């Protein structure tokens, strides 16, 4: 199949790339754009390590074709920090010890961001449900859930302040 030229808008930047139609968004991000913050864990949509935001929604980038993401807004972990300042979720993950090996972290952060963008005051149960597609083998999820709840609080405080 012939390669196709597509435009990807990733973290506010526009990229023109040539890809085979069967290339996934995950492969395009990692191999074409060299944004390796997004991790590959299973390629089947089971583990969530490749989670990115597509038009604000959390998706497994291994299940999205790059050509289907053309002209859409993609946010990866590299786009979370703004102007050199980390997102409150990133700060909370560090502070609460939610990062161990760190391989699930980028995907986990983006699932959490999708949740907080929709729901400013999630319950613990809602947080757990939102990250149920993101496996973590190191933490038992305890500190991740804590960090997301703490980030929600800190974001709410900023919003009110």
């Amino acid at each position, binding site marked *: 199949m012939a390669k196709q030229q597509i435009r990807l808008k990733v973290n506010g930047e526009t990229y023109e790339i040539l890809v085979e139609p069967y290339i996934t968004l995950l492969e395009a991000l990692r191999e074409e754009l060299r944004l390796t913050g997004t991790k590959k864990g299973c390629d*089947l949509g089971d583990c969530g390590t490749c989670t990115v935001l597509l038009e604000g929604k959390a998706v497994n980038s291994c299940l999205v074709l790059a050509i289907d993401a053309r002209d859409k807004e993609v946010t*990866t972990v590299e786009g*979370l920090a703004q102007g050199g300042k980390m997102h409150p979720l990133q700060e909370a993950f560090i502070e609460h010890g939610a990062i*161990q*090996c760190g391989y699930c972290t980028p995907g986990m952060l983006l699932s959490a961001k999708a949740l907080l963008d929709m729901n400013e005051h999630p319950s613990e149960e809602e947080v757990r449900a939102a990250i149920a597609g993101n496996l973590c083998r190191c*933490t038992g*999820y305890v500190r991740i859930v804590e960090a997301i709840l703490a980030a929600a609080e800190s974001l709410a405080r900023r919003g009110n302040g």
Partner: protein
Amino acid sequence: MEGAVIGQSVPRLDSPAKAIGKADFTADLRFQGMLQAKILGSKHAHARISHIDTTLAERLPGVQAVITAKDAPAVRYGVYLKDEVLLAREKVCYLEEPVAAVAAVDEDCASEALALIRVEYEPLPAVFDPLEAMQPDAALIHQDSSSYKAVFPSVRYGNVCMYTRIEHGNVEEGLAAADLIVEDTFCTQPVHQCYLEPHAVVALFDASGKLTVWSSTQQVFVSQATLAEVLQIPMTKVRVINTYLGGGFGGKLNPWLEGIAALLARKSARPVKLVFNRLEEFMATQPRAPFIIELKTGVKRDGRIVVRVAKIIGDAGAYADHALGETAQAAVRVQGPYKIPHMRAEGFCVYTNKVNFGCYRGYGVPQAVFAAESQMDIIAERLGLDPLAFRAINLAEDGDLLPSGERLRCVSIKETMQTAAERADWMEKRVNKVAGRGIGIGNAYTNTGMLASSVFLRSNEDGTFQIFSGVVDIGTGANTILCQIAAEELGVPLEDVSIVSGDTDMAPYDLGSIATRVTYDTGNAVRLAAMDVKRQLFEIAAKRLEANIEDLEIGHRHIYVKGSPDKGVTVAEICQHGLYVEGGPIVGRGKFLGVPSFKTQPGEGYPLDPYPSFIFGTHIAEVEVDKDTGQVKVLRIVAVHDLGRAINPLAAMAQIEGGIGQGLGYVLTERMIFNEEGRVLNPTLLDYKVPTALDMPQMEVVILEYPDELAPFGAKGIGELPQICAPAAVANAVADAIGVRIRELPLTAEKILEALRQDSV
């Protein structure tokens, strides 16, 4: 300044890089001209290879190298028994065993090339069940196993790749003295570590012929030595690096992928990257070995255990690998943290035509403790005793003997059990039972401190310090903890210490990040190196300050005479003075090998060295079982651990919570299902069933601190034990809830329904 850094919950030093997506794992690396590799796996579980034709694959445009066994030196390697080969030579012993490998311009091209390799097999009778494999007429998986080198006095025959027999007391006397003898057989299933980062390697040879390998390994030095061995090149020509590791849990010890990537890099004269996909992870890496555990335990009417006879049958799969060590370890640890005056344990590790099994967080102990703690409850019931009361009668104490001859030290099981019982409200919950609910206990101990560690510690002229260590921070926070230990000993703030780790060219030898050993062993080495540096700093400062070394103190980045903190010199000035004036830069070194004070009686064919120290823990689990569906919901786990001292309580708690999560998967849902051809039927994370955030119970983690004087600042480590205690506690809670005991893991809904159905007949 004691206590300034140790005991502080500081965020892991590597977490900012991981949070912003700038931590490069091995698969993220890319080099000019880099090729992608794929491995061709065997299509048979047991077969002779009559012919391999790689001509078509080699001709495919884009293919740069194709290798088979003839491209590798004829070397067998292995951690205990040297029975493994990089690529199958003459025969294959498990399905998907590497037969050939390809390096090509991209992964698609490499996959296409694999399909062009023609392998002719003559299938051989295969054996998948270890009990069948032990029969005298079973098909032999390794015909010439007697020629294999072993690194211990090995006893082996037929398909048994290790037989060991260890014993203390007099078992016959014990059996005669017992009022009640209880016999049970328990079975555990193969489970995968399911670290989220699949195995990855990048190999390249430089112009001088030196091989550099970036690898997702937990043991860079073991990888280096093995690569030198299998490639037949000197160790100085091999450098192994790990930058970040996405979890390992014992699943990233065996360095065979590195060897295959290196052979391809040599043949193609290009950098080669080899990354496993999840299917390959499940089919061809080293999951935890399944065990059959037979226990015969004799007790007195008053509840005292007098004797135990244990037989452990470990399934090695196709090569001995770590299953061998695990089987031996289980034979010792199946005693549990109890006094057993007469004990005999036999271990059989048996070849079968399945993937070679390895180790997973606990090294044989989770299997043993599931069996031992299940039987403790069975015996308590037979004696009409509360499970906790029965355990209390038998708790181990300092100096108690293990069948390997080791003597238990720093025993704190009484304290962990009491604390857990109080926190979990044990008595109340046992007495006032709620239908469908159960409560169960899991007591365990395991070893810490194992083989050698060494580090360098250097000062910089600005008064900061850098550790050079061979450990890999696999996600435990090891690097942060080692910096805390150095900062504490040096008397400087944590931010003044950094660490370079996971690189064989940058640090002296360390066994690596396995077996709950880093805090104990590398921690001791770091502390000794820091003491060495501090002594050198004080020697220079003493001259500058015209004072005695003994009168000096360090604090607030100054060295001063005690009592005069306003006078003195800065640490930076002393570092500079050393560098420019006084004999050169200040470099410290520390090395540590935890040699226990007791003598061991290794028994027959026992492969393990004695351990210097032990850690203890108790978990109590509460569960609810739906008797209509068989579904188990774990409501709460109270986890109490004595880890000597928590260098970083936040990191220690997270280790315990993570261990509980893995333990729940082991006891309730996880299993690799093999079919009659040796194929894994559920090789995806969805079908395999790793617990999610929704499956986690409420966790109450309690850390007790009974410092071990041989450990750095008393800290013994925590790594494996939470995963050892949790399954036992949950299994006992399920039995308590449903009134029937299931002796085979995992406790799936199907098995629970079946047990309930049989029980009601």
